[in-house]
């Protein structure tokens, strides 16, 4: 228990954790592979285009080259059935697969963890209600959700969606940040003024003024971000994914959205289960007794103690979501041809397993290597963040 308290007061747990992480060679290996992989998918396609001229969608002009070719010097990964360079396709596919992985992990960490933790900690009717909502979302066939999303927002509407969603997200983030900032300033002021008794009576007016000023400032930032966003953010995102905005074909973004929607559900259940088993332990009771707010108990005490399964489950979410994406693509609900993802490349590759094995091996191994590294890194982070590791 004293250890738990000590942990809260730890000067800089993050830098400690970072140091511990660097000592873990497997985790470092994973981190390096992941960084290399991310860099490769960002710059790789362009480098290949400059040096060899191949792109993910370049079909050779000569008909005799439009076929699957085994790995060679000009095509280190071989080609697909249309004679397209598989290396370029794997790198381009990495953009989509990694993005799918990152978004779903992010959603599952942010939404899933806080949702599950709150449900588990609050308990009772609230827990029941929150978990039943999860059950309902879980039971609704996500394929139908994707079909409807595509029907409603696909086609010409995607254009608006792709331009507006990033803006709305950016806008609301800035808005939330603004409010937090304002509350923070307000509280600091409260603390500051209360110590000098004479000014105490003036704080509400001044505080309000500062809040208004801060909001106005944030409003200006928000509006300008909208202006910038409408001219560059959406289109540049679409450009990065190689989709043409004016054609309204950016199904990929809808896919990200749909996968994000379902990826947090099991995480919420896992976290809730952990919290249920933790919340009656001594250190929580102690924290309660010392008057720590429920918010702080959940986020400073309970979640850090449940981090092990959380991180492991988060790393498990990534392959699951990548495979879901591959399956959706197979049904025509995922990435649009000629774009590909690791999952869809493997899906295509496995059909030619017995005759053109490289079509499965290269995307498959790239994906497996990434997932391996992610997993090592996840374990490393888990160990590094573990408040109890030092005791052993």
């Amino acid at each position: 228990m004293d250890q738990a308290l000590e942990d809260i007061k730890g000067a800089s747990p993050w830098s400690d954790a970072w140091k511990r992480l660097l000592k873990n060679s497997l985790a470092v290996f994973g981190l390096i592979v992941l960084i290399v992989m991310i860099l490769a998918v960002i710059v790789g396609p362009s480098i290949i285009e400059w040096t060899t001229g191949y792109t993910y969608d370049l079909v050779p002009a000569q008909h005799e080259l439009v076929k699957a070719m085994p790995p060679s010097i000009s095509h280190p990964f071989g080609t697909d059935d249309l004679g397209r360079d598989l290396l370029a396709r794997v790198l381009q596919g990495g953009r989509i697969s990694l993005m799918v992985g990152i978004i779903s992990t992010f959603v599952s960490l942010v939404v899933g963890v806080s949702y599950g933790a709150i449900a588990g900690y609050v308990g009772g009717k609230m827990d029941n209600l929150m978990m039943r909502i999860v059950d309902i979302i879980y039971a609704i066939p996500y394929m139908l959700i994707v079909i409807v999303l595509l029907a409603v927002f696909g086609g010409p509407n995607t254009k608006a969606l792709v331009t507006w969603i990033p803006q709305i997200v950016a806008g609301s983030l800035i808005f939330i940040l603004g409010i937090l900032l304002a509350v923070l300033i307000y509280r600091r002021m409260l603390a500051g003024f209360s110590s000098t008794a004479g000014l105490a009576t003036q704080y509400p007016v001044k505080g309000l003024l500062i809040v208004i000023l801060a909001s106005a400032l944030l409003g200006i930032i928000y509006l300008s971000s909208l202006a910038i966003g409408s001219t560059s953010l959406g289109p540049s995102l679409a450009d990065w994914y190689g989709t043409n905005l004016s054609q309204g074909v950016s199904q990929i973004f809808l896919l990200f959205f749909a996968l994000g929607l379902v990826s947090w559900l099991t995480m919420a259940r896992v976290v809730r289960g952990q919290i249920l088993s933790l919340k009656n332990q001594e250190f929580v009771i102690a924290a309660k007794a010392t008057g720590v707010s429920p918010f702080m108990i959940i986020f400073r005490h309970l979640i850090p103690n449940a981090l092990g399964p959380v991180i492991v489950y988060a790393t498990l979410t990534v392959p699951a979501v990548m495979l879901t994406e591959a399956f959706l693509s197979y049904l025509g609900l995922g990435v649009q041809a000629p774009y590909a993802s690791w999952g869809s490349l493997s899906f295509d590759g496995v059909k030619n397993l017995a005759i053109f094995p490289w079509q499965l091996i290269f995307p498959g191994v790239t994906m497996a290597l990434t997932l391996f590294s992610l997993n090592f890194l996840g374990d490393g982070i888990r160990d590094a963040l573990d408040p109890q590791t030092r005791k052993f």
Partner: protein
Amino acid sequence: MNILGVSKIRTLSILVSVAVASSFLAGCSNTGSNRYFGKTFAPKDNVLRYVTGPEPESLDPQLPDGQPEARIYMALYDGLVEYGPKDMQPIPAIAKSWEISPKVDEFLFHLRDGAKWSDGAPITARDFVYSLRRGLRPETISRTSYLGYIIKYAEEFNGGKVFVKKGESFLLAKDFGGSDNGSRTPLGPETTFHTFIASDDRLALDGDEKKRAAEISSDAKLKAAVEGAEFVPVMADDIGVEAVDDFTLRITLRQSAPYFLSMLPHQFFRLVPEKAIEKYKKEWTRPEHIVTCGAFRIKSYRPYDALVLEKDPNYWDAANVHLDGLEFLAVEELTTIMNLYKAGDIDAFQNHVVPSPWVDEIRQYKDEYLNFPENSTAYYAMNITKPPFNDVRVRKAFNLSVDNDGLTAFRKVTKPLYSLAPSFIIPEYDVARAKVSEDIRKERGVSSEEWLKNSRYDPEQARKVLNEAGFPVLKDGDSYSCPSFPLENILITFNSNESNRATAEFVQAQWKQNLGITIPLKTMEFKTYSPYFRSLQYEGFAVLLWSGDFMDPYTFLTLEAGKENQGGSGYYDPKYDKMLDDANYELDSTKRYELLARAEAYLMDQLPAIPLTIGATNWMKKPYVKGLYPSPGTLLPWKFVYIEQDPEKWDKDVENILVNTDPVVERQLQDLKSTQPVATK
């Protein structure tokens, strides 16, 4: 934490990948060395196991419209005529012979008297009358009932229309702008029903009161005429089908239809059991209730897995049915079908199965792989209601820059398509089309090279045409660009499957290369695609696949005929419709084909769709399976099929399977055809 751990894991994963990789390579060298693809032993139980596709929608032949089901119905139900095993031309079945009226608008069928249901009851002409009436009943909701619309008053009955009775007589269509079908001389005995059905067409109005009111108020003459008239719903007994006696059936059509006989083997026209249907209603197809009339009957049924059939001793031609049993397996995944075939668990499978990357390898199995032209086509429809594709020159430019031969070489199994109707399916039509093309060339005074240039792949000409349309193509080093072409919302839209995707990616690359225009692709899930395509929401190109309903070019030419046509381009030209109608009134088959070819040439000048490929059968059968032929529709009359135990007599080099003659099948076919003295044409 130690470095050793890292290296061990690395070694482990490298080992695993090397093991996996080397096993693949071993797999490669493993195949191809044998004469046959996988296990090949003739089954001793004389039962053929066949994959016909996914679970059949129903065992009721009049409901579904799919080909996988059609193959099952061919085993379970017989009709007036049957598809020929090689060319799908009609051969006698329950009808042993027939007569055709001079105008080809009335048919008299003479039924054989030994035909029986699987429960032993005799099959009579009344069963056919019932089957057709039942198929056309609105409540039956048959999706193929439109095939029966050629029968007089069938469409009116199916659409719930009403006749207009004034006093004792009915209003006639010819008085209100309908065509005059003239007098008919009866084929067979004159009856009261025939007097009625052969008389002038009655006027039929919509059964729905509101729609009818709108119809009436739009026509002043009609409005006056219906004053005080009574509306009589079109009844089942009004359809032009009549049992003249127990073994004579007369079918009266609404207009000349030289292609009617080739429609008759279709599942819609097969016999369904009146007693079972009326007794068990929608549950009549359950194995415990079902009554069939085909060469096989149901032994057991495990939905989504297997439909097991056995030879039906009550079948009129049972003596000539070779197989003791037939199993239809429901398998969806193509690679799974290939696996089952390779493992010797199935003896043959449906069309379009061998994945195109496999074809080069599978082709080596010369005794098993069947790749023949099919009665089906693929096009890119263009939305001609929206610019820039409302300009025929733009459409031509895009057509000229697609290399159909290259596409075919890439797709491996198909043949290039240059027109609306496929070649190689009906040789007589190919001859007519070549002659008409030559005639038109002479009429226009074009040299033969120039003539060919205008219809085949020619990127130079394409750029010229696009230039004329106002979109100059600029040369830019080795590549081209066309910056003025409005790309906004222009897409190649298709429902997602491997073959559509491969075609789209290829064509996209061609246009990029030849015109410098990159048209993005858009895939859709099938059910989203069909309404999107049909309601002309797409811009640019959309895939259109068509398989012929019967063995006549007309089934393809109607794609663009009529206002509400199946072409999906928004094309409508009354002149084209008239040309088709005129052709169908022509009774001489050669002349008719030439008229149809004329109409086709006229249509192709306007090019509502870019022809891409002719379908290919693309399936396999074990060499011991005989009498199973790659017919243009992969509809297989099962009674010709037999299993040859003697490896000496197994099929070899199936490339010539349609030309070679199998004495067993040939004799069987001759026996059947002998009852119909006149040529089936």
